[in-house]
């Protein structure tokens, strides 16, 4: 365990460092090093300090939040296929942002945080309600399908809004792919309190969620207040996903992948999976972002597209070979 943990911290440090050195425009390693030691020429300073550094920090913060949100939602729903993107939370936040833009709110991160939070909250509750209607438990397949259905409704309304108003379309289209490029430290500072609260809540929820993994009845008899845990978990997921989406746009599949990587590394214990997801997810997001900068020459791919290409195969792999009990 300490070995895995230190390995992850090392990986995160390396990824963050590489993120400062690699870009669409190649900057010599010596120039970047000069900037980092306090010197360097003006151009390199601007590139590294005003562009790559904020971007790296945003990727780390957003990655940690989405990883924690994924681990929470998987633990709480006991559903290995759960992911904020798959369950429609991202689509809800996207709709919230589109509504805010069309209502004439500024397209700054600060103005968009609350609409994104409201949309994420609405979507989380709707998908949980929908999946638990009727007979029997909310199986993974039910949840996934509920997410798909709600995503369709939200996306349909979002598209209608975007086409209704071309100005919104222009502002919305760069946001909707999910990217950490071009974000400033101010943007990060705006959402940082929300992310901090969400991450703190996730750490506090580790033990109750471990008990809930045994079943709600067992958890109650172990002295866990299941109603409060449910409320706090939904709150934490909403805050984490809403705030991340407000700053970086919808980034899918990260919350799906990170907990599974952790499960492979440290086994099925939420006291380990949840904190570790906060380390694994930023490593994945940073790596995806670095690859996204260079994979198409002179053209950046938004990192949300990279994570979809990494994450969808993971989803398909999980469902194959009965790794996941679909019933």
């Amino acid at each position, binding site marked *: 365990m300490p070995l895995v943990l230190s390995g992850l911290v090392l990986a995160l440090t390396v990824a963050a460092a590489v993120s400062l050195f690699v870009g669409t425009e190649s900057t010599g390693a010596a120039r970047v090093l000069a900037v980092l030691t306090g010197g360097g020429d003006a151009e390199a300073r601007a590139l590294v300090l005003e562009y790559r550094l904020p971007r790296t920090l945003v990727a780390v913060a957003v990655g940690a939040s989405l990883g924690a949100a994924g681990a929470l939602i998987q633990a709480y729903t006991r559903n290995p296929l759960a992911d904020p993107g798959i369950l429609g939370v991202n689509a809800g936040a996207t709709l919230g942002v589109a509504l805010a833009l069309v209502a004439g709110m500024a397209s700054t991160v600060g103005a968009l945080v609350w609409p994104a939070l409201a949309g994420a909250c609405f979507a989380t509750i709707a998908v949980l309600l929908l999946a638990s209607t009727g007979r029997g438990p909310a199986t993974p397949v039910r949840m996934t*399908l509920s997410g798909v259905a709600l995503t369709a409704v939200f996306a349909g309304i979002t598209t209608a809004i975007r086409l209704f108003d071309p100005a919104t379309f222009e502002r919305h*289209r760069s946001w909707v792919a999910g990217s950490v490029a071009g974000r400033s430290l101010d943007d990060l500072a705006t959402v940082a309190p929300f992310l901090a609260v969400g991450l703190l809540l996730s750490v506090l929820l580790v033990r109750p969620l471990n008990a809930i993994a045994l079943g709600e009845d067992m958890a109650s008899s172990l002295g866990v207040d299941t109603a409060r845990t449910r409320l706090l978990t939904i709150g934490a997921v909403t805050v984490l996903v809403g705030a991340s989406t407000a700053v970086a746009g919808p980034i899918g599949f990260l919350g799906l992948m990170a907990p599974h990587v952790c499960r492979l590394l440290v086994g099925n214990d939420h006291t380990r999976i949840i904190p570790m997801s906060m380390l694994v997810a930023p490593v994945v997001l940073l790596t995806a972002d670095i690859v996204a900068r260079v994979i198409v020459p002179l053209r950046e*791919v938004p990192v949300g*597209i990279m994570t*979809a*290409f990494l994450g969808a195969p993971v989803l398909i792999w999980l469902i194959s070979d009965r790794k996941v009990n*679909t019933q």
Partner: protein
Amino acid sequence: MTGLITPERGSLVLRSSGRVPVSGRFHVRTVLVCAALLLATAAVTFAALLLGAVVHTPAEVVRALAGDAPPSVELFVVQWRLPRALAAVVFGALLGVAGALFQSITRNPLGSPDIIGFTAGSSAGGVAVLAFVGSSYLLVAAGALTGGLVVAAIVLLLSRGGGVAGFRLVIVGIGLSAMLTSLETWVVLTADIEQAQIAALWGAGSLNAVSFGYTGPAMVIGLVALIVTGVLLDRRLTLLELGEDVSASLGSDPGRTRLAAVLAGVVLVAVVTAAAGPISFVALAAPHVGRRLAGATGVCLAPAACTGALMLASADLAAQHAIPGHSFPVGVATVAVGGLYLVTLLIRENRKGAL
């Protein structure tokens, strides 16, 4: 030549011997329901011809269709509104049948091309061609068909041996759809704003660009594919639904039936997608609604086709005129309404405890 029609518990049985021996069984309620649906579709289509920036009287429209109206009226009714109204009817029917085919072979009420990723595949193929090659119908159609077939092959390959009522199929489709949608997002993002608007409109599924010159071939190809599918596959699929062994012992090879149905379904979806972009959820909902209305069991291609036609025609009418001054792509209407339908479908399946 002797012909004989005998009534038999809810059906009419036709037997005719002669130079061309024909026999068939018609479920009376199905026939009546289809006729009623077609009447309703005709009414909606007529309304689509009347309404618009310039509202015409029914008499003017009839005269324009007969060919003796002033050129201005003819321009509006025959040149502009008729292609779109007809396309909505034909494409709706194609989508309904495609949905019925996939739901039948996957034996899953959720196995519509929207959910298992074929629509996304066709759409990604079409967008790629639009962005990098050109916008003539045949090119876009080829792209959409290739995309649809490739995704169909991948989905079927990955979900092999899924069993469990094809749930693996659904999840694999959702994963692939997510990848393809994000790819499309990127194409839209990299194009300049005007091209991006065009691609986004196309990606939303729209009948705005429809004219006889552009979608005429699509309608003809689609109708031919539709009739061929109906004649060749309706019975075989009904047999297949009774089980592979029953189907084989009655002389219809299950493997070949399934392959033919997948190919036919992909062609139908691709024809529509190439002409109008991805129009979601008609393929999901039309077969269910059609089967319920007809009160029949089995594949029910004809009710699915009629319901699909009525659905898309009404959706397009609503998308054009529901909010005055704004004409939405029909795909937006079908996604929002179809998503709600999927929600109710899920609630119903949950009640049954089927999922």
